């Protein structure tokens, strides 16, 4: 009998607006598949960011809220505290989560909010035109670091997973990448696990996903996948930074 890859019910039947080769689309699919496979699509509320994923409320096939820049974890807190039985996730980029919304992220983790945060790190501001992100690599050229990010001027890349893992309320913190089929499968497992941590009420879960921005990196999409492997992963090593004591 023939089996086919299926388009997940977790995504609405819409074309993504993302640039060619941008891996946001892969991450959307993984999140949507995880929600569908866990059978919680009808009780999920997603909170989307400001940034390239600002239109994510058009794509995820569940109730969605568009938050102000950086405030998704606070909005998600409000939802989850009113509807404790719901499944609540935020989908945030590096500017949204690691710059303007650092406080909201850190304190949602500190409170052990039973929410799942999908943190898309592509080391650049995409939507606003390729400016430096808090996660931009040293030496990386952006429109606001035209000579490459220098630590003496612009400081150092922020390692969010390492930081959040130090917080007691964070139950599961992991970093994955979507630059190869193997890593995509691992990312899927991590996202499933993060939602399971929420369903078990263990605390805050965060999956950092290294993603690409071919447009603002000035690379072809295949080159961008290689750039993740060669440049990003050495700075942002993959793996679990915190796992629940009661392994899920």
């Amino acid at each position, binding site marked *: 009998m023939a*089996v086919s890859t299926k388009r997940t019910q977790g*995504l609405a039947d819409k074309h*993504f607006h993302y640039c060619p080769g941008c891996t946001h689309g*892969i991450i959307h699919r993984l999140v949507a598949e995880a929600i569908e496979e866990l059978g919680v699509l009808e009780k999920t509320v997603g909170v989307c960011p400001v940034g390239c994923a600002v239109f994510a409320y058009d794509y995820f096939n569940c109730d969605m809220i568009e938050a102000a820049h950086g405030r998704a974890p606070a909005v998600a807190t409000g939802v989850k505290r009113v509807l404790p039985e719901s499944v609540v996730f935020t989908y945030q980029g590096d500017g949204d989560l690691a710059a303007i919304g650092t406080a909201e992220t850190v304190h949602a983790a500190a409170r052990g909010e039973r929410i799942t945060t999908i943190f898309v790190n592509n080391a650049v501001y995409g939507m606003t035109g390729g400016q430096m992100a808090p996660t931009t690599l040293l030496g990386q050229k952006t429109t606001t670091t035209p000579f490459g990010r220098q630590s003496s001027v612009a400081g150092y890349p922020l390692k969010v997973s390492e930081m959040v893992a130090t917080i007691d309320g964070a139950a599961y913190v992991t970093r994955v990448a979507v630059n190869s*089929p*193997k890593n995509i*499968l691992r990312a899927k497992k991590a996202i499933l696990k993060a939602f399971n941590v929420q369903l078990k009420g263990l605390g805050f879960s965060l999956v950092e996903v290294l993603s690409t921005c071919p447009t603002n990196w000035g690379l072809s*999409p*295949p080159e961008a*996948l290689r750039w993740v492997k060669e440049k990003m992963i050495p700075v942002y090593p993959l793996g679990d930074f915190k796992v629940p004591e009661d392994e899920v």
Partner: protein
Amino acid sequence: MPQVFFENERCKGCELCVTVCPKKIIALSAGEINSFGFHPAVLTDGTKCTGCGFCFLVCPDLAVTVVREEGGNGESTDEGE
């Protein structure tokens, strides 16, 4: 035999599937242009497809469907690194 379908109107010609295909049997169509102005991906030699699904996994735009026999190994020649 496994089959791969590309939904031309969803394809943005990013070539990620071309890059990860272990059999190197995906290319961008030279002649065809979809309504968004992209050359969509096509199979160059379907007989070599193992149904590994890498193209499905890596496609950011849900443009790929892979059909294979149940129980078929779908093995690839590498681990998709």
